[in-house]
């Protein structure tokens, strides 16, 4: 068992428990919870020719009516094939420009503000060479309130790299309404606990619709929106899950389980 994972234990109402550690001890501050977050995901692939998808998500702390992001990437490593506005930009006027190699710029606007929590942008890119790691940096990010003032935004950069983490498997079968609780050694940055950084796939790699919710400062749960069909599933916990200090999880985790 890797050092960042403790034993699987049973809780009162919990069928299973994973405990992860975050690299650095964190200091809890109220400010960290009040600021909006724009983050890019990590795509786990490193082989030349493979196509990866990177998502940029927003977890707004206050209502916003517009914003902008500028991403930079190594254009010798990634060739952008498609960019798309995310569902969180439905109803917004949106402009995305990926014509200039190495950068993607997106901006969006609406007359009235709303709390934005979800996908701002996704892009697909082909790996132009085999890589160990390449960064997707958020160079600039702004969110604007309807009164045109600026919101405080914290950004988390994304990556493309081969999956470096541990792959675990639960031997016994679980029920179809299985609720997983993931416990971390340190307080988690709640804005990074979302379906972009924690997801469940079936054996064909298809995403399963789950709710990912912070339950307390150090744990979150994963609940299926509809009962799982019988079969084998994998939970992936990205190293984009971050502590209150913004530090990434040391390694990502894949955890396989089978529904009876």
């Amino acid at each position: 068992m890797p050092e960042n994972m403790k034993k699987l234990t049973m809780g009162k109402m919990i069928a299973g428990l994973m405990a992860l550690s975050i690299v650095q001890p964190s200091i809890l501050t109220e400010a960290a919870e009040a600021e909006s977050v724009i983050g890019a995901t990590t795509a786990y692939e490193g082989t030349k020719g493979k196509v990866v998808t990177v998502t940029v998500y927003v977890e707004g702390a206050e209502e916003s009516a517009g914003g902008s992001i500028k991403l930079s990437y190594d254009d010798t490593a990634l060739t952008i094939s498609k960019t798309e506005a995310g569902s969180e930009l439905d109803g917004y006027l949106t402009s995305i420009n990926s014509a200039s190699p190495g950068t993607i710029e997106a901006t969006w606007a609406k007359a009235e503000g709303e709390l934005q929590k979800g996908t701002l942008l996704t892009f697909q890119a082909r790996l132009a060479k085999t890589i160990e790691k390449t960064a997707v940096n958020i160079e600039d990010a702004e969110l604007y309130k309807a009164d045109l003032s600026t919101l405080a935004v914290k950004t988390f950069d994304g990556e493309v790299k081969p999956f470096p983490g541990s792959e675990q498997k639960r031997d016994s079968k679980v029920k179809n309404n299985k609720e997983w609780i993931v416990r971390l050694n340190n307080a988690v940055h709640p804005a990074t606990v979302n379906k972009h950084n924690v997801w469940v796939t079936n054996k064909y790699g298809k995403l399963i619709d789950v709710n990912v919710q912070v339950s307390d400062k150090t744990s979150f749960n994963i609940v299926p929106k509809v009962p799982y069909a019988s079969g084998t599933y994998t939970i992936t916990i990205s190293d984009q899950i971050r502590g209150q200090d913004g530090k990434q999880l040391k390694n990502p985790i894949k955890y396989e389980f089978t529904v009876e």
Partner: protein
Amino acid sequence: MAKKWLKAAAASIIAAASFYTINSAGAATETLMEVGEVRSTSDQAVVPVTIRNITYLMSGHAEITLPENTVSVETAQFTPSKQFTNNLFRTISNVEDSKLVIDFYSESPDAQQIKGGQAVIGYITYNLSDSFTPGKAVTLDLSAVSVKGRYNADVAVKELDGEIKNKMPIGDVVGNSKVTATGAMRILQHINGNFITEKEAFLSADVDADGILTQQDAMQVLDFSTGKRLTFLALAAKELPNGVLKSEYYEKVEARHGRAPYTFKKRSGTIPYGLKLNEQTGEIIGLPTKAGTNTFTIEVTDAVGDTAERSFTIGVVDSYIASVEKLYPINVKRGEKPNLPAEVTVTYKDKSIGKETVHWNEVDTTVLGEVTAKGLIGDTGFMVQATVHVVDENYLKNTSFGYFQMLNIYTVIVDVNPEVYSVTINGIPAHYEGAGQYSLASAAFTKGNPVIIQLYDKYGNLLETKSQKLVIQ
């Protein structure tokens, strides 16, 4: 020109019918070094220095100088662009008083290839003092340019001077002095009923130059902020007035938001027979020789090769009226009925002059901006037009006239609202008397004749034009 009615029929919008597209970096092939024309309302202006239409670049030299004795604008620094600071070029700059000297050299023994044929060399930051007040402008003189290209050969370069204006940048809208999503948000709020009433902000928001604010303006602002659009160059929308068979026609299409000088070209369609487009000025002049309606597209190219186009329509009618008196634009408060003249003075084809009744169509004044009022003159089939500015303010509160018998001089006194910064009367600046009042005394004013009062904001934008007959009560 004797028959000016078509010139007189004022500029107006053709939003629904207009076809509008824009391209960047068009046909210009001459190598240009350009100092940007920049607007700013903040205490700084950042001006790009760009080289265009060049494939290989070995080295270059340029000097950019502020006008002598300029105290309101000061050169702060020059920041080379990424391309001119990485391994491709070594860039050196030096500021001496009002002059900035820039030199750059290829870091390799060979000339560097310039992708896309153009590159921003860097950005000059100027500090703007409080005395650089709204509406003011300074020229940034570009001189002593020398450029070497492939094999160290000299390249002939056309120099384009720059300018800094204390005005709101096009697309800024909210006073950030840059184009961001907030400009688009504010335009969308305007469309939702939270109106942009300040003239400078409205003109900054009307990026497509059609006189009204629509979602298209917001979209273009967003595209500019992401770099999808590199210029707001546009041909101003205009509903061109009718021409009359065998009567002189004069109209002009105008470019906005690009770099002068402009050239104009017909791209498609047919201009009415007998009329010609002046490619340097945008004027459409001539004697129409065939009745009918013609739609055509004009393309404008600016000094740096950007292009934009718009379609226009001219109808030519056969009428016994040759021309109509000049109608000035009319301001009307939103939701109110414009005060359009019931009759107009016309010149008939036999050169006689008379009055004709106008039957004006309904004018939609629910949206701020420009609309065109159209009226039929009697049963002639002749259409007369007037530009109506739908506003939220009455800029002109009151006009009164005085008379000094001893000197035989009339005085015009106008009371205006606080947004008015200057007033002209028959083109002559009026004196500010305080408390929102301006006056002008002149022997040139004559009783019974109209005086033309024009009100401007602090940026020099025309807020209102009013023609008023000089009458002593």
